[in-house]
């Protein structure tokens, strides 16, 4: 089972390599990348440097070109595909049918992974992409239960990749317009959810307020841990009940189910967080390397070490983690 780690900068690439990543995924610093945050990601020069670093260590480079192309601007997406192939990426991570079409026609030997943004959650959808666009791997959305992941794995022989750790998207990825509804900027086309330029913090007599494009996402009492206003983690009111109507600020952590994922033939476990710091990437990569190695050393007696879980919990959103949709009760 491959450990696939995120990087939004060269120092993060190095951190992942030094701490045991088998593969690293990155993207360009433009709208072709679904993690297009200011000050992050790779220009033409840096992406070549990242490729060289990763290839020197004999590790795999995956490049995410996973937004949906805008009219009249398709050449940016074509350029990203050409560039990724040119620098020798092992795999291209693509969501848009237009980009899949271009990559699979122009580079029939390229390894194409279906991005989570394409939201393939079932066998018929996987068949659609496989039969029409020659994909070899599917990154599964974070909406499936572990039982459903196992069922899919039995139904298809295509490689499956799952999200293992990091931010918890609770909506089927690529089909969520909440951020675009509030800000006008869509993760699907511009590449960022709850973009930082729309975030405001304000001290009021009702407490510290976080807003996104002037909409109150949450209010915090003195001393309460305030989180980034990702809007699905906000506190809203349904009739008289004020609560986290969609989800609490929390992160996904699947170390506990490593044995089930391995037995279900999952090809790769993905760490989310291209927007996070090199120190974060280092810590998560190091602990996940330990966990995976520990499982393969003695599969029958695998147990999550409480020290790993503590350290991962400390760097997680809201300092808490969950199995998310993998666990049926969460749903």
């Amino acid at each position: 089972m491959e450990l696939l780690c995120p990087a939004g900068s060269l120092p993060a690439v190095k951190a992942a390599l030094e701490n045991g990543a088998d593969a690293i995924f990155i993207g360009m610093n433009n709208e072709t990348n679904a993690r297009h945050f200011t000050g992050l990601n790779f220009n033409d020069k840096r992406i070549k440097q990242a490729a060289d670093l990763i290839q020197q260590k004999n590790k795999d480079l995956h490049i995410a070109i996973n937004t949906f192309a805008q009219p009249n601007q398709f050449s940016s997406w074509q350029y990203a595909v050409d560039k990724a192939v040119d620098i020798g990426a092992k795999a291209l991570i693509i969501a848009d049918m237009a980009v899949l079409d271009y990559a699979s026609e122009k580079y029939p030997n390229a390894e194409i992974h279906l991005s989570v943004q394409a939201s393939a959650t079932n066998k018929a959808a996987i068949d659609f992409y496989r039969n029409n666009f020659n994909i070899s791997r599917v990154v599964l959305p974070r909406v499936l239960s572990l039982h459903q992941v196992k069922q899919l794995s039995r139904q298809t022989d295509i490689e499956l990749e799952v999200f293992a750790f990091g931010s918890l998207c609770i909506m089927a990825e690529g089909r969520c317009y909440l951020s675009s509804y509030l800000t006008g900027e869509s993760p699907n086309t511009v590449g960022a959810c709850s973009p930082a330029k729309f975030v405001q913090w304000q001290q009021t007599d009702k407490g510290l307020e976080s807003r996104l494009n002037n909409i109150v996402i949450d209010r915090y009492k003195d001393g309460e841990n305030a989180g980034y206003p990702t809007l699905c983690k906000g506190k809203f009111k349904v009739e008289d009940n004020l609560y986290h109507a969609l989800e609490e600020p929390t992160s996904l952590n699947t170390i506990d189910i490593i044995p089930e994922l391995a037995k279900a033939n999952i090809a790769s476990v993905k760490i989310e967080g291209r927007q996070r710091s090199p120190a974060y990437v280092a810590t998560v990569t190091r602990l996940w390397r330990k966990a995976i190695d520990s499982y393969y050393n003695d599969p029958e007696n695998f147990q999550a070490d409480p020290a790993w879980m503590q350290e991962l919990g400390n760097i997680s959103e809201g300092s808490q983690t969950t199995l998310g949709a993998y666990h049926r009760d969460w749903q």
Partner: protein
Amino acid sequence: MKFSLGANQYYWPAKQTQEFYQQAANSNADIIYLGETVCSKRRELRLKDWLELAKQLASSNKQIVLSTMALLEAPSEVSLLKKYCDNGDFIIEANDVGAIEYCRQNKVEFVCGQAINAYNSPTLKRLIAMGMQRWVTPVELGRDWIKNILSEMDELNLRDKFEVETQAYGHLPLAYSARCFTARSENRSKNDCELCCIKYPSGRIANSQDQQELFVLNGIQTMSGFCYNLINDVSGMQDVVDIIRISPQAEDTFAILDDFIAQHKSPTYKKLANNHSNGYWHKIAGMQTI
């Protein structure tokens, strides 16, 4: 311009659904979409009931389309989807690419629903080759974006191969989750939901802490808090849209439909209610209004 009634997004008792479609049969809609698109646990009407209803409505000289689920996870949901696609009489609105794959294999035409990410002309070109005969635009695309795509389709000589449909009225489907937010709002899990959506024929409003209507919780679907309303944009839709879609409401759907038809014949400015918006059409945030 044609007018359609989209698939009902909410969960109503069978009797209410039947009554709604009796009215629809006598309405001015040209196209009616039928079927459950949100949650497979909503079974007040089953496939055979929908098919029976479709046959009744087909005699009223309207086009009937069977709409299918947007988020399919369990193998049982996929098997049911296949039965819809194999029905033999009615065309399918695909809201997941899995449905497109079945239609493609069956060599039958389909409608590409608003939950499919078709954002550009190379995508539409591929979909047309697979049998797409109508494109329902994704909710966040506005006039300029659609117009740009259509001029590219013109250059490809493909503009006459498909129709364009846009939702012009009703809360917009914004997201789909594994979690049921209506059940959560009653402090239940999805497994134990007791089909509580049926108590909320227009969904449940989630307000921000300063009382702004942000979202409507509708089972596993999250909808826009404001009702999308393009009543003042009907004339601007004429050169880019072939079909105006009205999303079924618990009340007044047919009066709203008639308002849009009247607006098409003779446009007059209507003041939008405070909780209505038209932002997406004008390339700004969906909840904003021009």
